[in-house]
C-alpha cells in the first residue's frame, strides 16, 4: 500500500484540516465532522445538507458554498455519517426556513438520515428529504435495496442549491430536487479496484485486461466483468444503458465523471465518445461537465450521468455557484 497518509484512523480528520486550510470561507468542524458555509445560516434561505462516506471527494465537502450546499457531513471512508452530525449541520444552517437533506440511496445513509430527521425535528427544525437513486446498473430494484445514488447527486445539489439561493421555500426546493433526480440516470465502469486505507489491499481482484461494468462508488464489484473495451465501446455501452431507462424530452445536462484515478485526457476523450453516441441517438446536450466529482478513492474508471434539463433546470444550473470544487458565474 502506497498512500499519502499518516495512519488510516486519521485520514478523514486530516483531510478536513486540509480542506479548512485551503478554504477559509468554509467553517470546518473537524471534531464533529461537519463542513458549513462560512455565512450560514443565511436569513430566509432554505438550508441544504448532504453527506455520506468519505472517499468520494470533492463530493460533498467540496460542494459547500454559495449556490450549492449549506453543509456537508463526511462519514468514515465509504461509511455513512452518524445522525448526530446531520442534526448538528441542520441546526447550524437553519434560518427558520427549513432544511433539505439530500441523501444517496444506500441503506446506511438512508437509516442515519432518517434518525437525524427525527433529532432535528425534535429541535424544531423543519426537515424535508430527497433520495437520489440514479444508477441504472441496479436492475431488479424491487428486490434489492434499490438503485444507488451516484453522479446525479451533483445535479441535485447544484440545482436545488440554486433554487434555495434564489429564496425558494422548502417545498419548492424539495420539488425541484425531486424532479432533477427523477430526470437523471447514471452508469459507471471500473478499470481498477479500490484500496481503502483501513484495509490496505484492493477490495476486489480485477486482472489487467478486464473491466467491471455497472459499478457504484464504493469499490463494490459491478454487474458483470468483461475483457477490456475501448473508450468508444464503453461509451456505447454506458450511454445506451442510460437511454434504455431515460427517454429525454428535452436537451440534457451531461456529466462525464472520473472515479479518481483516470486522467483528464482520458475523460475528455471519453466525453467525445459520449457526445458522439448522444448525437447518433438524437439527444441534444445543453451543458457538459467533465472531471473528478463523485469519486471512489483510487479507482480508475468513469461514469456517465444524464439529466433532462427543461428551462427552469437549465436556468438553475447556470446560476452562480462558488464552492471549492464547482464555481462559475460570480
Amino acid at each position, binding site marked *: 500500500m502506497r498512500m499519502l497518509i499518516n495512519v488510516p484512523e486519521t485520514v478523514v480528520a486530516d483531510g478536513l484540516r486540509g480542506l479548512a486550510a485551503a478554504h477559509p470561507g468554509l467553517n470546518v468542524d473537524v471534531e464533529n465532522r461537519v463542513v458549513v458555509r462560512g455565512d450560514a445560516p443565511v436569513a430566509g434561505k432554505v438550508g441544504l445538507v448532504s453527506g455520506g*462516506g468519505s472517499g468520494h471527494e470533492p463530493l460533498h465537502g467540496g460542494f459547500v458554498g454559495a449556490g450549492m450546499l449549506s453543509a456537508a457531513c463526511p*462519514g*468514515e*471512508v*465509504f*461509511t*455513512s*455519517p*452518524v*445522525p*448526530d452530525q446531520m442534526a448538528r449541520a441542520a441546526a447550524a444552517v437553519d434560518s427558520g426556513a427549513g432544511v433539505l437533506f439530500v441523501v444517496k440511496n*444506500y*441503506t*446506511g445513509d438512508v*437509516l*442515519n438520515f*432518517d*434518525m437525524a430527521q427525527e433529532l432535528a425535528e425534535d429541535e424544531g427544525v423543519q426537515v424535508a428529504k430527497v433520495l437520489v437513486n440514479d444508477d441504472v*446498473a*441496479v436492475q*431488479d430494484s424491487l*428486490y*434489492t*435495496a434499490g438503485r*444507488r445514488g451516484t453522479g446525479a447527486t451533483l445535479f441535485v445539489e447544484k440545482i436545488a442549491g440554486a433554487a434555495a439561493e434564489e429564496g425558494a421555500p422548502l417545498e419548492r426546493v424539495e420539488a425541484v430536487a425531486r424532479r432533477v433526480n427523477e430526470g437523471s440516470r447514471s452508469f459507471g465502469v471500473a478499470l481498477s479496484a479500490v484500496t*481503502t486505507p*483501513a*484495509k490496505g489491499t484492493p*477490495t*476486489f481482484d480485477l486482472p489487467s485486461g478486464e473491466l467491471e461494468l455497472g459499478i*457504484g462508488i*464504493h*469499490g*463494490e*464489484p459491478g*454487474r458483470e466483468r468483461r475483457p477490456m473495451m475501448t473508450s468508444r465501446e464503453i461509451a456505447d455501452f454506458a450511454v445506451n444503458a442510460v437511454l434504455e431507462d431515460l427517454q429525454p424530452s428535452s436537451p440534457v445536462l451531461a456529466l462525464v465523471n472520473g472515479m479518481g484515478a483516470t486522467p483528464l485526457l482520458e475523460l475528455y476523450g471519453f466525453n467525445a465518445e459520449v457526445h458522439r453516441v448522444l448525437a447518433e441517438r438524437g439527444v441534444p446536450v445543453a451543458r457538459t461537465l467533465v472531471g473528478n466529482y463523485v469519486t471512489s478513492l483510487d479507482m480508475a474508471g468513469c461514469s456517465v450521468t444524464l439529466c433532462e434539463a427543461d428551462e427552469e433546470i437549465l436556468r438553475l444550473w447556470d446560476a452562480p455557484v462558488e464552492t471549492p470544487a464547482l464555481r462559475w458565474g460570480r
Partner: protein
Amino acid sequence: MLDADFFLRWMNALADAVDREAGRLTELDAAIGDADHGTNLQRGFTAVRAALEKDAPDTPGAVLMLTGRQLISTVGGASGPLYGTLLRRAGKALGEEAEVSRAQLAEALRAGIAAVAQLGGAKAGDKTMLDALEPAAAALDESFAAAREAADEGAAATVPMLARKGRASYLGERSIGHQDPGATSSALLVGALEEAAR
C-alpha cells in the same frame, strides 16, 4: 437471574470478540460489500467500552440502551442504526428491572429483532443479520449454548443465499457463495452471551 453485571460482561465480551474478529469481518465485507464492517464495529465498541466504564448503568435495560445509543452515535453505515436499534429496543423491553430471566431476555431480543426487521425492511432469508439473530432468539429459551449454535448455523446458512438488502444486494447472483458479514457479527453477539454466562 441475570443482573446488570451479567449484561456488562456480555457487552465487554462482545467488544473483545469484535476486536478479535474485526479483520475477518472486514474481509467478508470486502467480498460482497465495501470492506468496512469490522473497522466500523470496532470503532463503535471501543466507544461502548469507554462509556460503560465511565458510567456503568445499574440495570440490564440501561446497559443495552447506553450501548445502543453509543453505536448509533459512532458507527455510521447501516450497522450503526441496525445494531443500535437492536440493543436499544431490547433494553427498552427489559424496562427498569434489576434482574431479568433468560426468558425475559429472549423476549426482549425478539422485540429488538422485530425493530431491526422493520428498520431495514429485511426478512429471514435475505442474507442479513436476521438470519443469525432470529434462530438464536428462538433457541435462547432452551439455553445460551443452543442460542450460540443456532446463530453460528444461521450465519453459515447465508453462504448460498442471494442478498436482497444492503450493499451486497447490488451484486445479485454474485453475492452467492459468501457468508454475510452482518450475520457473522450477529453470531459474535450471541456467542458473547454464552461467554458472559460462564
